[in-house]
């Protein structure tokens, strides 16, 4: 059970090996190196920074909304600006922040936690990031040129359709979705294959860290859910651009079809965010109570059952439409049943804390905050599974309160993970003192902002209103909520100060500052480009706590080319080796090609044939190895 110093992982004569590995795995120097990197750590970090930037921008949108709503008949924002801002807020938080952030954390840490040198398909990884970045820039370029989507993050037709959304605002939304979904799907496939085939020897499926399990379930959900929204936004775009009739009831289309397609993706989406958050909580709980999480199998099964059940709930977003009653009852039952796996998880964490020795570091405080905030949101979630009750609170501020409790509930483990992994990411510790301020302000701010909204919902305040008249009496609680938003903003301010100070003058982090269990702590902070000098062999479920005295490692991987180990699916027995190509700017160029294609498609159907040519060129360039890589690969295969 005792953590082992990571330096014991390595072998005696390592200095030469390290130098050669560094030469092999390092990026090219300078700006080209920055553009051409295929290192999952650099890309993952970049992904995180981008997603966090858009979190700040989405938060800025929220701040503007709270300012507008702080008193009745406020004329700070007009309806046109407000509608764009609330749409962009929702779109940003769901598509540019929450899901990409979870993918980013996965892309950075999953390979380290399973003991791999790099993620599977590193060039696709780079491509996915660039496509995601283009999607982000498109949405905000739209907002800043008054072309921000204004039909809500859910883009219900006919409001988002060709007749009621003139101009290109809804097209910006549809293409932003396309870009982020492409990126999300790529990340999901990479994570699945990395977990399936790149695990360190000995890490059989029943020894995978719980966060990795959560990422695996989440990635499978992504693969099954995201094509629905990608197709739906394609239908919407073609209704708008080439006059198809998917959503036009007068020509055999159907407005509710959009809602079915959207929510068949949209509800799993919530769990796509929440399940990795539970994985983070499991890692944090185990690290800060110094014992492995109680009920590993139950936790894994809970995640998997959430993954399945999440696909059976979508109609509970449509209880006030004309869906049949009988169908609604089924969805009520499934919606209530998903509380059971969530309950199992909560009870197992509490049991772990009960049995363990809690250390009240900032990351652990965020776990406690998570449980409180998330259980509150979960309970209101069970309430709205009820059809009669939902008809009252649907599309009101009660729902706004509910899902902010759930989603900000998932933000608590994210912040906790930031304090936990920041040393690994940067080699610096964050300040615990500022962190406690961050936690306290955030916890207070979330509750002050969102708890009153439950009552606003009962009092009749619908969502998505840019203002309200004084006679409704909603002014006071709205002012309280806006005051809470100020507290949230200040807590994020404290976090930023903490991060910036730490980057400048934070205490240097040791390799394993928390004496935690998983493999990412078995390498330097920050990890070198090749991740591990020797890939460790895993001897138990808690990789670093369950080590024998021998501390076996993998030897024989080549150090002068990017040689990676492929293991078997279930038992992680070494099976073959895979040549990882050199870094290249081709993914960036391909992403630009795809970006130009889809942006052109907002304006003209000719984007499609032109785009096909661009894709052809991209494909040739991608597949065609340069002379040096070719020689290297032939030599690699000959060597085997």
């Amino acid at each position, binding site marked *: 059970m005792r953590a082992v110093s990571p330096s014991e992982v390595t072998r005696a004569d390592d200095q030469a090996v390290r130098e050669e590995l560094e030469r092999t795995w390092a990026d090219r120097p300078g700006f080209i190196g920055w553009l051409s990197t295929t290192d999952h750590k650099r890309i993952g970090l970049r992904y995180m920074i981008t997603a966090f930037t858009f979190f700040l921008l989405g938060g800025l949108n929220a701040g503007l909304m709270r300012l507008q709503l702080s008193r009745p008949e406020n004329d700070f924002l007009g309806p046109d600006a407000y509608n764009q801002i609330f749409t962009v807020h929702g779109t940003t938080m769901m598509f540019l922040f929450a899901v990409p952030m979870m993918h980013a954390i996965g892309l950075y840490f999953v390979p380290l936690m399973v003991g791999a040198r790099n993620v599977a398909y590193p060039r696709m990884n780079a491509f996915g990031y660039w496509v995601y970045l283009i999607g982000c820039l498109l949405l905000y370029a739209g907002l800043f040129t008054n072309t921000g989507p204004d039909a809500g993050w859910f883009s219900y037709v006919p409001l988002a359709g060709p007749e009621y959304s003139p101009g290109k605002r809804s097209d910006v939304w549809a293409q932003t979705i396309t870009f982020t979904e492409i990126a999300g799907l790529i990340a999901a496939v990479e994570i699945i294959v990395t977990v399936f085939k790149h695990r360190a020897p000995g890490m059989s499926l029943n020894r995978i860290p719980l966060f990795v399990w959560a990422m695996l379930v989440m990635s499978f959900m992504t693969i099954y859910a995201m094509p629905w929204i990608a197709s739906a936004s394609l239908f919407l775009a073609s209704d708008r651009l080439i006059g198809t009739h998917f959503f036009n009831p007068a020509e055999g289309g159907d407005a509710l079809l959009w809602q079915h397609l959207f929510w068949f993706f949209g509800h799993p989406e919530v769990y796509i965010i929440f399940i990795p958050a539970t994985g983070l909580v499991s890692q944090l709980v185990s690290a800060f109570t110094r014992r492995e999480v109680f009920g590993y199998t139950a936790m894994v099964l809970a995640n998997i059952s959430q993954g399945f059940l999440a696909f059976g709930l979508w109609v509970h977003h449509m209880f006030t439409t004309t869906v049949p009653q009988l169908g609604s009852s089924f969805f009520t039952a499934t919606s209530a049943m998903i509380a*059971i796996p969530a309950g199992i998880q909560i009870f197992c964490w509490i049991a772990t804390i009960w*049995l363990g020795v809690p250390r*009240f570091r900032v990351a652990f405080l965020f776990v406690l905050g998570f449980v409180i905030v998330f259980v509150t949101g979960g309970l209101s979630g069970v*309430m709205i599974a009820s059809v009669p009750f939902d*008809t*009252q609170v649907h599309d009101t501020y009660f729902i706004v309160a509910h899902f902010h409790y759930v989603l900000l509930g998932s933000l608590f483990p994210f912040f906790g993970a930031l304090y936990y992994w920041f040393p690994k990411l940067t080699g610096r510790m964050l300040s615990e003192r500022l962190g406690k301020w961050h936690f306290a302000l955030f916890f207070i701010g979330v509750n002050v902002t969102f708890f009153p909204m439950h009552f606003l919902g009962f009092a009749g305040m619908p969502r998505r209103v840019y*203002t309200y008249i004084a006679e409704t009496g909603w002014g006071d609680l709205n002012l309280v909520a806006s005051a809470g938003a100020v507290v949230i903003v200040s807590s994020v301010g404290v976090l930023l100060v903490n991060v910036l100070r730490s980057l400048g003058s934070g205490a240097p982090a040791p390799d394993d500052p928390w004496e935690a269990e998983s493999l990412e702590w078995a390498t330097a902070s920050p990890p070198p480009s090749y991740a591990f000098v020797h890939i460790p062999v895993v001897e138990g479920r808690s990789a670093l706590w369950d080590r024998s005295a021998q501390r076996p490692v993998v030897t024989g991987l080549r150090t002068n080319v990017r040689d990676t180990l492929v293991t078997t699916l279930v038992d992680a027995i070494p099976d073959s080796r895979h040549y990882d190509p050199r870094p290249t700017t081709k993914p960036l160029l391909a992403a630009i090609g795809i970006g130009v294609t889809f942006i052109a498609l907002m304006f003209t159907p000719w984007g499609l044939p032109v785009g096909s040519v661009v894709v052809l060129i991209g494909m040739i360039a991608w597949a065609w190895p340069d002379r040096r890589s070719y020689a290297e690969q032939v030599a690699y295969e000959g060597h085997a």
Partner: protein
Amino acid sequence: MTRFVLALQWSGRHSALDPAGPQAARIDSLWQFLWIVSAVVLAAVVAALLYASLHRRRHAEPEQAGAGTRTVVIGAVGLTVVILLVFLGLNFGTGRALTIPPDGAVQVRITGKQWWWEVTYPGNPPSYQVTTANELHVPVGEPVVVELGSSDVIHSFWPPDLVGKRDLIPGETASIWFQADRAGEYRAQCAEYCGHQHAKMALLIVAESRDSFDRWLARQRDSARTPADSLARRGQEVFLASSCVMCHTIRGTPAGSRIGPDLTHLASRRTIAAGTLPNTRGHLAGWILDPQRIKPGSRMPANPLAAGDLEALLAYLETLQ
């Protein structure tokens, strides 16, 4: 507890928790169960969490899981299942009670438009049909069935004091029934995002005794009379000669366009601009001159009338009782 909090905040306001009809009352009693159970569950989880965190923080080594821990966790999960089953039972009971509309209900049709409500009472013969806007009159203590449709985008009808909401979806017909047990005015606001003025699309429900409801309905059937005094007569000429006539109907005059609300009995209505302003002379004047200041994006254009014309027009509109 919640009643107390709401009473502080909301005395005399509208609320789903201050039901004025049987359906809202059933939903309210479901809510009473839900929040009490939720409060207990939340308190129990927080207590367990804090106690678990604090009770052995001075120990050095973690414990192995014993049979006791497993039993407690399984028990907690079992209790969760039991609570959920009770919840489902209550929920289905409530749902069944709410969906069956009683016989002999008053029939009304509501059409959602960007951003106002057209209210139609079917008539027999059809010429008895009554069309009004943004105001729904119902008799107290009698069930009302509202047929809901939309002529543009999706809207949602929601009077929180009376019943939950129902969407108005283009291409589909939905219906909802409710009953007001107390006389009074209830506000219903559009609850599905429908564009620029989603925020200012409210409907006033006036529940009154059967007698006054019948009187109201009979009066609404009448056409507008040509006004007696000369100022109002001039106002009618202004109405018919200006842009008003392009969009509005006043039965009994050549104005017959159905783009905007029917104004035949405008002066009998309590609010203008879909529940945005009280129907007073000053507000009406401001609304006619520059609606875009009050509801930016509204379909009603500005009408820069000369002072005399405006005066006359207002005098005319006030005769439309």
